[in-house]
């Protein structure tokens, strides 16, 4: 199905009252949790996974995508008003945004962030609709060997390329792979890594791991370093942007969106790199007057560009997720497990076997974007009020819901022990700077990669060279190797030239 007829079908479904309701609920929840420090979209969607038992797939995914997009909008509010970015993509926004807020320009900063997010969300969603079917065409030619190679590339980029250290990123990834191995082997029915505990035969639940990493570990780490004191929430003021604000924001929005989307689409998905690049680009391109505001009173370009890049990259992440079944962020990985709990196998066949679901989802992303800009511009005062929930009760509440999410899986105390155990590990991971997203991706993608590898080897009758003799697979593996070793070789070369 081509993009236009797909979108026509999708909008027909998305504009029904029930689906509009799911989208509105998702946007509302997403903005709220995006604003609240300490909860992100990955955790929220994980906690809401039980609804997949009672809600239709379309409704659930519209809700999840609303949360996904909404959290991006909400995250910028926190980083501007509180100067504590809620998620990695908003770190850059808080650089200039918080400075603008300190100089009484919080309103225009919030407005340029919201409109920039809207512009980028639209560009990104159009990108999904038109790029998706093209990638599906290509992906249909791939066999298990190529799939395995793609997953290896995905592993390398999410763990070794992004973040501070390749060794620590890979350690996180292998911890995730280890968690994914627990349970009964699908092909031979043998129990693996269960330590003889019968509760582990079904494997470690992904909700449990997400909650342990993002709620329990984070809260424990906050307690570790807790210092009493009140955080200051800046006043919002008028959100009207002056004519010069608009003029200065327009091109950064467009450039940010153009920069962010390709980064999201690539399996190196992530929002840190494009937001950073956009920030440096805007600082370079700013006029002499505006450049003085960077780092001093806060330049509006430095909010508009990165915020657009952040949202466009987030939209781009949905492309490999929907077309290849490859998640490149923790949130996408959890959405993937939601597909699995409906018995839907994400991958290139999704666009044909579940065409209605996919296109309704894409149409809902447009709807959500419009809802979000409306929810965020006039109602920004309401979101600022959420920031005033006192910390003690906020974290206590987060842990109560974390318990519900885990205990609700099978009412087993073993699950709670695992939850707290992995939570303590996550706390130490925070302390020693091991990234947590590769754990989730390794855990969900690991079993899929193993299956693809064993399928490929069955087809080749046990010949391991199949991965390097098939040209496409060999190319992808070469790129993965380059991504792993390239930066180190480049660094060594730089040192030699300097010496």
């Amino acid at each position: 199905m081509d993009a236009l007829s797909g979108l026509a079908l999708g909008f027909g479904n998305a504009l029904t009252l029930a689906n509009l309701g799911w989208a509105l609920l998702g946007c509302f929840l997403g903005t709220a949790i995006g604003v609240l420090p300490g909860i992100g979209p990955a955790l929220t969607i994980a906690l809401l996974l039980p609804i997949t038992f009672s809600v239709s797939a379309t409704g659930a995914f519209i809700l999840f995508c609303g949360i996904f997009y909404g959290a991006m909008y909400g995250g910028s509010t926190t980083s501007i008003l509180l100067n504590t970015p809620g998620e990695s993509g908003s770190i850059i926004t808080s650089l200039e945004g918080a400075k603008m807020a300190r100089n009484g320009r919080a309103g225009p900063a919030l407005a340029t962030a919201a409109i920039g997010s809207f512009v980028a969300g639209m560009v990104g969603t159009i990108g999904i609709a038109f790029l998706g079917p093209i990638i599906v065409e290509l992906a249909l030619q791939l066999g298990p060997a190529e799939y395995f190679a793609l997953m290896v590339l995905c592993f390398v980029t999410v763990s070794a390329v992004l973040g501070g250290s390749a060794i620590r990123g890979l350690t996180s990834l292998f911890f995730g792979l280890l968690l994914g191995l627990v349970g009964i082997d699908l092909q031979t029915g043998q129990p693996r890594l269960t330590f003889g505990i019968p509760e582990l035969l079904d494997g470690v639940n992904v909700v449990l791991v997400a909650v342990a990493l993002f709620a329990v570990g984070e809260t424990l780490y906050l307690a570790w370093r807790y210092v009493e004191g009140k955080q200051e929430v800046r006043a919002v003021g008028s959100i009207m942007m002056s004519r010069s604000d608009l003029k200065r924001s327009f091109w950064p929005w467009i450039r940010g969106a153009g920069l962010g989307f390709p980064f999201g689409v690539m399996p190196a998905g992530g929002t840190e790199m494009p937001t950073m690049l956009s920030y440096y680009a805007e600082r370079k391109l700013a006029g002499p007057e505006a450049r003085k505001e960077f780092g001093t009173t806060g330049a509006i370009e430095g909010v508009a560009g990165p915020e657009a890049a952040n949202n466009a990259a987030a939209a781009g992440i949905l492309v490999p997720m929907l077309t290849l079944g490859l998640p490149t962020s923790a949130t996408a990985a959890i959405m993937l497990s939601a597909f699995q709990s409906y018995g839907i196998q994400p991958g290139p066949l999704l666009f044909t076997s579940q065409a209605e679901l996919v296109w309704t989802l894409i149409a809902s992303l447009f709807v959500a974007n419009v809802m979000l800009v409306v929810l965020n511009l006039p109602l920004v005062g309401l979101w600022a009020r959420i920031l005033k929930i006192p910390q003690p009760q906020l974290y206590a509440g987060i842990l109560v819901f974390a318990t519900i999410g885990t205990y609700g899986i099978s009412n087993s105390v073993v699950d709670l022990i695992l939850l707290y155990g992995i939570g303590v590990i996550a706390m130490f991971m925070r302390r020693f700077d091991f990234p947590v997203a590769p754990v989730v991706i390794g855990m969900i993608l690991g079993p899929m990669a193993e299956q693809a590898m064993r399928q490929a080897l069955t087809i080749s009758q046990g010949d391991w060279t199949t991965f390097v003799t098939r040209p496409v697979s060999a190319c992808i593996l070469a790129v993965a190797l380059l991504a792993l070793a390239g930066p180190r070789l480049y660094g060594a070369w730089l040192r030699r030239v300097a010496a």
Partner: protein
Amino acid sequence: MRRNLPDLGAALFVLLLGLLTAWQASVIPTSPIYAQVGPKAIPYLVAAGLLALGVALTVAALRGGWSDDIEELQGAAPLNLRALGLLLAGLLANLALIGPFGFTVAATAQFALVAAAFGSRAHLRNLAIAFVVSLGAYVLFVKLLGVNIGAGVVEGLLFGSPD
């Protein structure tokens, strides 16, 4: 260069995890079903990966470690034993209470302890908030979403026995 003891601890933990994985991989029963790659291959691969990374981290820790370069830790607050202890007590209270007394009692105790960990002193008010929030969550999940999160004393009194 000086070795970094906390970092060494983290590295040794990764090595231990690798050893545990290797041990568990070795006890996987060999499959009677023919397969090109048996169920043991990937577990051994993961064990090998963890051991190799553990060795690399150990070497890094012996050469001075990496923690000193983490920006976030520069000037970070010291370990707050009181907050961490109260928080862990909250988690343990939940573990101990949820079986015998049910969700609402366990969650209320946990909420009050966690709030205290983060410096709240209005303990009675926290207990009241906790009770209302937990009971509300219970009704939402059990009655509306049909997810059982553990009935107990309070739930039995209010809604009758679960069966």
